[in-house]
């Protein structure tokens, strides 16, 4: 079985600053995929960024980047130049050989003006 843990239920950051959301996971499989999804107050959950475990290079999507530490089973999300629209619930997800996504409990991020 796999697990995903997000140890920060809530976080806040000032607009234009950088914030890092933590995520750790556990799986016995060697090939897997990691995801960060965000769910803004409007409720539609969207994919932020994806990382393949076999790739050593950290994924980057504009202001969003990850720090993937495979040995430590850590997958943190860094948001640079935070914007008000980044306010959302962020979910870390893990997918192995099956189809299901396993999620953490989420981190509520608030970006303050």
């Amino acid at each position, binding site marked *: 079985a796999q697990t995903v843990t997000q140890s920060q239920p809530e976080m806040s950051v000032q607009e234009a600053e950088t914030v890092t959301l933590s995520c750790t996971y556990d799986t016995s499989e060697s090939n897997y*995929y990691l995801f960060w999804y965000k769910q803004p107050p*409007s409720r*539609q959950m969207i994919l932020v960024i*994806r990382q393949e475990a076999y790739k050593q290079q950290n994924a980057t999507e504009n202001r969003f980047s990850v720090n993937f530490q495979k040995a430590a089973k850590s997958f943190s999300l860094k948001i640079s130049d935070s914007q008000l629209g980044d306010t959302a619930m962020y*979910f870390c997800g893990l*997918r192995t050989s099956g*189809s299901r*996504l396993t999620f953490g*409990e989420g981190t509520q991020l608030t970006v303050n003006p």
Partner: protein
Amino acid sequence: EAGVTQFPSHSVIEKGQTVTLRCDPISGHDNLYWYRRVMGKEIKFLLHFVKESKQDESGMPNNRFLAERTGGTYSTLKVQPAELEDSGVYFCASSQGASGGKETQYFGPGTRLLVL
């Protein structure tokens, strides 16, 4: 392109009643998933359809939950009879054909179910 849609957006029912949730996936997506988030906890997998067939229903909590996907298009999730612990947000997601696990699952806005 229309995204995943779910109906209703909210539902309030009394314990013992029946509720049916509907999900319309993105057109052409063979894979359809149901997830649930209860009481601010993690989002948990319920089941996975490939076209009209149930690929994995190991996450279904009990036999009060029945999911169908007739014709391989939209899906319904019926809870009968509803219990208090069924309250939560029910998410539907869809994806295209399997590509080794990295394909993106696109989520709907969810249905907020409250059982009183």
